[in-house]
């Protein structure tokens, strides 16, 4: 069975997400939108813009910069914030390292992905944010399929799968105890294709790394890794030039590239529908173990 591509975006999903964002702004004192520069958080920014129009987006964006981001992502972030007149807060993983709160990983699989949790939790505490809006989707990964729309976290940012509040109908209970905060997932019910179709319908700009481009890469464990000064390589891992693109925006040390010629949005969508590997399959950090995501979530990972 081959996929017929359905280019239509289910409008019900936008209506639901806007409703959730408006509830977030109304029920919490200091919400913040966690922005990674990836397509899901770009979608969130668009939804926030629409939810409060013609008013201003009533909360800032927070970007946890690992220092290992693709330069294209940072460039895009600054362009978006300036164009839409949004408030942006940036916190750096490097600061957490310098403060001795976390330690840089070593070895060829070293990444700062796990480290950013500490920086994020510190930023939440410092900003007294009681609601963090994120672009996670339930279709991404098994543990995320169980996540609520308003997901209560304790002081340590921990998620307890067995203690989740029931969510009934479209009624959202954002009441929390002192020290707790809520992770809000407005696009919980979207799939990867829904996000792409939305970006297409809304004619949204996205970072250039999503489109096919020439880049130095190395091959490791059957995946294509972007070559950069941040990546620890062994002597036999020799970079070579290849036309690739990225399906997700993560760190340069933990996001695998796919071979691609797709340089238009339609081509990307067509490619995804034909894709042989699912989106998070290109996230090297999830492969560490079957229960990797669930473990990170218990530890307060976004």
């Amino acid at each position, binding site marked *: 069975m081959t996929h017929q591509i359905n280019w239509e975006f289910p409008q019900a999903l936008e209506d639901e997400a806007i409703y959730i964002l408006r509830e977030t702004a109304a029920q919490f004192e200091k919400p913040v939108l966690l922005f990674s520069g990836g397509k899901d958080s770009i979608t969130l920014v668009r939804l926030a813009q629409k939810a*409060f129009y013609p008013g201003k987006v009533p909360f800032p964006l927070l970007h946890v910069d690992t220092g290992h981001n693709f330069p294209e992502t940072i460039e895009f972030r600054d362009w978006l914030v300036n164009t839409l007149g949004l408030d942006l807060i940036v916190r750096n993983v490097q600061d957490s390292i310098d403060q001795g709160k976390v330690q840089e990983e070593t070895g060829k699989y070293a990444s700062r992905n796990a480290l950013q949790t500490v920086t994020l939790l510190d930023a939440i505490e410092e900003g007294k944010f009681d609601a963090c809006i994120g672009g996670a989707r339930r279709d991404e990964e098994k543990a995320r399929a169980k996540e609520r729309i308003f997901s209560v976290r304790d002081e340590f940012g921990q998620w307890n799968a067995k203690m989740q509040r029931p969510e009934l109908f479209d009624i959202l209970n954002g009441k*929390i105890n002192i020290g707790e905060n809520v992770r809000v997932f407005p696009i919980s019910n979207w799939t990867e294709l829904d996000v792409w179709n939305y970006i297409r319908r809304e004619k949204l700009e996205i970072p250039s790394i999503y489109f096919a481009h020439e880049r130095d890469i190395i091959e490791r464990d059957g995946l294509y890794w972007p070559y950069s000064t941040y990546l620890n390589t062994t002597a036999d891992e020799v970079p070579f030039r290849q036309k690739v693109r990225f399906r997700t925006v993560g760190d340069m040390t933990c996001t695998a590239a796919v071979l691609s010629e797709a340089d238009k949005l339609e081509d990307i969508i067509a490619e995804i529908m034909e894709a042989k590997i699912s989106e998070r399959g290109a996230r090297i950090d999830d492969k560490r173990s*079957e229960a990797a995501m669930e473990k990170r979530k218990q530890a307060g990972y976004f």
Partner: protein
Amino acid sequence: MEVLRIATSGSVDDGKSTLIGRLLYDTNSIPQDKMEALHAASKRKGLDFTDLSLLTDGLVAEREQGITIDVAHIYFSTPTRKYIIADTPGHIEYTRNMVTGASNAQVSLILIDARKGIVEQTHRHFFIASLLRIPYLVVCVNKMDLVDYSEARFNQIVEDFQQLLASASYKAQEVKFIPISSLYGENVATRTGSINWYQGPTLLDYLEQVSFDQEDSRHPARFPIQSVIRPRTTEYHDFRGFAGKVASGHFNVGDEIISLPSGQKSRIKTIEQFEKQLPAAHARESVVITLEDEIDSSRGNMLVKTDNIPEQRKEITANICWMDQQKLVAGKTYLLQHGINRVKAKVQQINFVIDVTSYQHIEGKNDMGLNDIGSITLKTAQPVFADLYAENPANGAFILIDEFNNTTVAVGTLI
């Protein structure tokens, strides 16, 4: 593209997760890397086949115990529809999750093990689907392969289920029986030829043709105000719009409306969706409404059309499902959240608790425990603009929140 929401229910071993895995597999919705992970995980468990149920049993604890313990959401689509499945557990102790999953569903999918027939859980699931007035009910008689695809066995189960239907309070449900084998894929998305005596649609064919939302036009227009948008910029200096999602019915530009609770009247000047101006707003659409006159309305208020105004209730009788470890106590005060509107509410009395397998009402109870379903009467501090659930489900449900620990302790539907 339409979105169809399905809630699945079943007992522990009747193959719910396998059925969902089968639906995803047969609609080509499982990417290759997940498929490979599935092969590997099945092998590790010493199985000689690919266990499709491992696809949805997400949490570590579940994988260890081989059961599903929470609501998992699964997505797949066909060229015409996007499907959202809320996979909910069948154990007695997780009824609250089942209610959670079912609360947003248009289709309730009940699984019956062909060898076992109707069991206690079937009653419970059917009762909840009926209580929440889910318009479509699909009864899949699964594991037909283990009863030699027997037509007589299937007919017996259908007959037993008809008796259950006869006792239900909600009669508008459309019920469909399908004999399936999720393990072999028979009648899930395709026919494998093992059941020649069944001429009806496969499960997927049935889901593809289910029509919904047709009741929406009959429901009264309700617009709960989420927030007031007042940009106070040079460009939009005098702009004052009410942001919200239409709960039910529809509104047109020019309609005369009344704002509750103030009772002030005005007319709809514009209906806006970002930069677009719309002629009308329908159920579940998120819009901004501006009015001809300056009226005093804020979050928690409701705009309705003057031809159908909900009763402003300070006393509510409701069916509730209790969802907390701490028992419901008559006389205690909770926060009642109806849609987005929160008011204090005191439990006046527990009218009765329902035995969900015999449907008997047990009176004289002073408390309700986790997973109990029953009827209570509440008194609210401020009026609630709710409709009876049977008349307008989208404006007839609420939750109760514990004032001290802020958790959601119950869901209720107005009766």
